[in-house]
């Protein structure tokens, strides 16, 4: 007790604690709208995953070597030699996947509850940038183990911007650091992944959180008709924080379980002379990758760049006042259609160039995702034209 008092008085002698206590208490006790539920914990979960990625990333950095000669071997070393190296590598790999899912779900919740509407347009835009940065983390981090899949997925991925008129080739060279994916690509992806993006995300999260706390959580009241929450609200501390604690523990368990039960395999070391069959990007890029197959490169790029453009502009396009999803049928129909198209194109991309069995019949799914029945005596895959 004496020690606590001594420390307390040491601090109060030097800082005007009373001045800070008031705003802190205000933030802690600030009531949240009554509809605040489990889905409102997705933002905190995204933050938790970001912190987990930073911590496990720092541990990986102790052993990782970003050169084409050592990258693969150093990851192999991490997975076999250092104490719990396998665990933090797997937690980092799964954390990246879960972060994309959780950030995406957080955006869906924000869209469905109409929280992006006035006056929270900037919060929404900073959220969209955070989502795109998370995808950037995935794209740059995927190359770092320098294995076959990573090498070829990056080769295909960095080829896409080349279709942009005038600046395409320059952009491709800028991304790769040369005409091909190689040591230069690895070092610049490494710098982007461990320095540029983490700091960018850090400041974006700070801004995003400040805006969320400053403007408060949106109610379901229509724009301009927001009622005072008053005593109906839920205190952030300890009520909502307890909920966040529950999902935090569950997420921690899921993350460790996935790392142990479904570990990511390292595969073969990158070999520029050996192209594997059916190169595909990570699952979250599959819908975009599938769309690109159907259109000329430039038109495909135009179509896929509409998605982030719409995300940025949505608060300014949808200026209707209701926030309740049941009172926004047009907006929700559009939302369902977008989700369905992501799912369909994603599945087509996933199953393309594979043989599958449907109702006891073998089908070959071609590059465009179209099934072709495999004839019993066929020795080659069925031919098809676009």
């Amino acid at each position: 007790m004496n020690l606590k008092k001594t420390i307390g008085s040491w601090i109060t002698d030097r800082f005007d604690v009373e001045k800070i206590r008031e705003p802190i208490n205000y933030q802690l006790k600030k009531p949240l709208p009554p509809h605040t539920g489990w889905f409102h914990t997705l933002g905190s979960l995204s933050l938790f995953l970001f912190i987990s990625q930073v911590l496990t990333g720092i541990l990986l950095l102790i052993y990782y070597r970003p050169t084409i000669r050592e990258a693969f071997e150093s990851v192999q070393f991490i997975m076999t030699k250092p104490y719990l190296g396998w665990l933090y590598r797997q937690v980092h790999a799964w954390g990246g996947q879960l972060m994309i899912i959780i950030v995406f779900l957080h955006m869906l919740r924000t869209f469905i509850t109409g929280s992006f509407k006035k006056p929270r347009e900037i919060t929404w835009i900073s959220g969209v940038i955070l989502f795109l940065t998370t995808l950037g983390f995935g794209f740059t981090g995927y190359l770092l183990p320098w294995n076959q899949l990573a090498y070829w997925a990056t080769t295909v991925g960095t080829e896409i911007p080349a279709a942009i008129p005038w600046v395409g080739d320059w952009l491709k060279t800028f991304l790769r650091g040369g005409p091909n994916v190689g040591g230069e690509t690895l070092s610049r992806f490494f710098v982007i992944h461990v320095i540029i993006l983490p700091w960018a995300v850090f400041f974006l999260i700070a801004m995003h959180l400040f805006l969320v706390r400053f403007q408060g959580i949106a109610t379901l009241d229509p724009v301009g008709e927001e009622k005072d929450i008053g005593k109906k609200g839920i205190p952030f501390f300890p009520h909502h924080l307890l909920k966040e604690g529950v999902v935090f523990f569950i997420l921690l368990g899921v993350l460790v379980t996935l790392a142990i039960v479904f570990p990511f395999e390292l595969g073969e070391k990158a070999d520029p002379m050996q192209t594997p069959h059916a190169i595909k990007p990570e699952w979250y890029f599959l819908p975009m990758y599938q769309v690109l197959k159907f259109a000329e490169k430039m038109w495909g790029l135009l179509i896929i760049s509409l998605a982030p453009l719409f995300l940025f502009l949505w608060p300014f396009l949808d200026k209707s006042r209701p926030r309740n999803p049941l009172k926004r049928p047009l907006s929700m129909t559009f939302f369902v259609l977008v989700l369905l198209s992501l799912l369909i194109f994603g599945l087509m991309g996933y199953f393309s160039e594979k043989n599958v069995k449907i109702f006891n019949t073998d089908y070959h799914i071609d590059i465009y995702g179209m099934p072709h029945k495999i004839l019993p005596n066929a020795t080659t895959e069925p031919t098809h034209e676009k």
Partner: protein
Amino acid sequence: MMIPAARSESGSASACVSCHEDIWGEVKDSIHAKQGMSCHHCHGGDPSQKDSALAKAPGTGYIGIPDKKQLTQTCGTCHSDVAFMNPYGTRTDQLARYHTSAHGKALFEKDDKRVASCSDCHGYHDVLQVSDPASPVYPFNVPKTCATCHANEKLMSQYGLPADIFEKYKNSAHGTALLEKKDTGAAHCASCHGSHGAIPPGVSEIHAACGKCHINEQSNFLGSVHAGLAPDKKFLQCAACHGFHDIQPASPELFSQSCIRCHTDESPAFLVGKTIQGQVETAEQTFHTQDQNIQSARSEGIFTQDEEAMLSEMKTHLIEMTTKQHMLKEGKIAPLLETIESQAKEINNTLQAKRNSIRWRFLALIPLWIFIVIMVIAFILKYHRMDRNE
């Protein structure tokens, strides 16, 4: 008279072609035509004469179709000329060697025209470079080229030679490697018998013939008790156990099959053979078991590069063992077997440790989830208690 040098006139400039156009068709793609040689370099005659009679007139050196003896001399004119052949990087002792061969001796000493001379193996007008895969003396084609005569039962019976050599060779370890796996390094007829100096290796030279490729086996064999038996010409060295043309991939089983031909099954020599057989079989089995063990660990997602490195070392010892067995000294094999067995044990132990570690990871999930469930229940209870109090 033959003209050894000045091979400048091409076939197109030779008057011979005006009548023998069909033959020039065979010659024009040959290595000789490409080097500017023409008809008269082998057949004599005057290529500048358009009249056939004048071209073949006495004094022009015209010999027509050379017989076998003339042919070898004609080829040898250039191919024994060191100064001339030097730029082509080919040997110049072919004719000299031919004279020492069974073929050459029969031709020149016994005037036997049935034996092979240059054109029987290399062709006539359409001679190709040895490195050309279409050449009859390209490694893949040598066995068939030799078989032209050596599989001719009627011809071989006149010399008391077997005519089934090609059939035996075709199915041998060497034949399969050369003809099926297309391994140009595999032994063919000329590898053991020589090409221009073709002669069956004598009993005392068998190890030298095999040792051209199997160096370590030869050197270990020379340290064995069998090496001293060679001068007696009773023991066929390598061939005594492995056979000749129908050599099959060797296995430790050979000890049981071959030793018994000379030794009784109770003799100490036979028992030494059986012991070595057991040692090699155990080593091979140990290696195979660990190879399977590593493969199955890899399919379980376990990193096995350390174990694979140990397996490579085991392989090196196994190879050393397979060459050292030719010394027929069990004491030389035993330390290698001991090393292989201890390495196998180490592989087994490290893989088992890795498997245990994975099992522990799964078991660790139980207390983790118990802790998580307790925390979740505690948080929810606390939440509801606070809710009720308000």
